[in-house]
């Protein structure tokens, strides 16, 4: 594998007021792979994801030290356009979060914010995004109905389509299957593997099995620290650290 590093995280610390959520994270993530971040609750997984597209800026009292580079550029550079960063680094949340507007408008929301106005162009973007998220066939006849009428799994794929409409380079997924049934989960996992051809995916998996099914590499987080980072095969069969082993074998967590 001779892929370049898409994301480089160096000595990254992250705090909510006085609580340290992440300490000294050093992690390189290669392009066009699925990287799984796993670990027990409150181990800093979501904080790391939200740091990567700076959604943490919304939180009062959040601060950080260290650097995160995407394609070699510091994302905390004050000259960098925040809206641009968020278009390049899309995020899907743990629970489906469709806006209470039509399916079409949900997908067109991002492109419209960016300034795409032409109806024809928007139609193409929406169709392409829904096809990539494997939702097109199910909704093509009812694009103008409310997104709230879709099932949970469909809503989550709609959220993925909504991000894909912006053609991001990186996709962050925070337990995207936590509220879904096994069949919907499977279709989302298939979608992710397909999407990997074109973009880098960072996934907080629903469980370890999911990580082993879809990810190329995985990192184990515990209490805000990155314990170890390995290929999925390695980390789940021969973990180096005792704590990783204990977690994987179910001794805690």
């Amino acid at each position: 594998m001779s892929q370049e590093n898409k994301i480089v995280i160096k000595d990254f610390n992250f705090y909510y007021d006085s609580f340290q959520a992440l300490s000294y994270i050093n992690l390189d993530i290669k392009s066009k792979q699925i990287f799984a971040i796993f670990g027990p609750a409150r181990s800093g997984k979501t904080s790391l994801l939200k740091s990567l597209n700076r959604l943490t800026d919304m939180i009062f009292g959040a601060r950080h030290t260290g650097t995160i580079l995407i394609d070699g550029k510091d994302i905390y550079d004050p000259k960098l356009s925040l809206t641009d960063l968020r278009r390049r680094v899309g995020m899907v949340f743990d629970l489906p979060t469709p806006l209470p507007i039509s399916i079409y408008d949900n997908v067109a929301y991002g492109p419209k914010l960016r300034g795409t106005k032409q109806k024809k162009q928007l139609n193409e973007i929406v169709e392409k995004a829904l096809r990539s998220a494997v939702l097109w066939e199910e909704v093509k006849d009812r694009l103008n109905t409310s997104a709230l009428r879709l099932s949970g799994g469909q809503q989550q794929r709609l959220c993925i389509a909504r991000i894909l409409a912006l053609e991001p380079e990186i996709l962050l997924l925070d337990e995207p299957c936590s509220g879904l049934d096994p069949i919907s989960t499977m279709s989302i996992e298939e979608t992710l593997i397909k999407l990997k051809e074109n973009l880098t995916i960072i996934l907080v998996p629903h469980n370890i099995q999911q990580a082993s099914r879809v990810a190329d590499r995985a990192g184990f987080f515990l209490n805000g620290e990155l314990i170890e980072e390995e290929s999925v095969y390695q980390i789940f069969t021969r973990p180096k650290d005792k704590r990783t082993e204990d977690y994987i074998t179910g001794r805690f967590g």
Partner: protein
Amino acid sequence: MIFHHTRYLTQNIAKVFIWVSAISTITVMILILLQILGEGLPTLRPHFFFDSPRSMGREGGIFSIIIGTIALTAVAIIFATPLGIGTAIYLIEYTRESRISRIIRFGTDCLAGVPSIIFGLFGFVFFVIYLNMGWSILSGGLTLAAMILPTIICTTEEAIKAIPNSYREVSYSLGGTKWQTVTRAILPNALPGIITGIILSIGRSIGETAAVILTAGSSLAMPTSLFSPTRTMSVHFYILAREGISMEMAYGTGAVLILLVLFINTVANWLLNRYIRHRT
């Protein structure tokens, strides 16, 4: 067994109390409506709506008064709505709990508790005399705007607070700026709550008497511009009844007032329901 009994008794007393409350509320409302509409409806012939008042309002209609009422309320809403919504957005989206936000909240809470006659006095001193706008639709409308501002701020704030935080996160994570997030993800969803506040405010403006007499005057002439003095229906009703000019005309005016408020409420609700159904 004893406990069982007490609980049963409490339950029954509560039930009776709740029923009595509900029934008396409805009875009072129906009595008022019957009284006003019963006395007023016979007066409501087309010429009552479309004639100008003659001999102090003893004869003729209330056309100029209807126009004056609508103009005054419109001015109040046009000024208070953007200011109120803007303030609410500022308080919730653009600032955190801070000294400034506390001062603004304290100010609006105080404004909400001030009796309307005080607003009238302020309007009279400030708009009518100091700014030399005279008794006019503009003076009256601005005074009413100040009076309804707290209602609009408060209802808008509540409506915005009810928006799930995930809508904000989604909008930001799709590359939205703060302004885009406010205008596209927050306001459209807060709109039903905001409209409710505006309807309440319209009701208060139409019904206001004290503040209006002091700032818009009580002229019966047809207003020709924002600087004309005018008389609203509530003021007309008050003067007709108080000076014993004509109880018949007073009830007629009262009936029109009630029908107008009912009409506005119905139309606004209908529009709101259509909007909600259209979106979801």
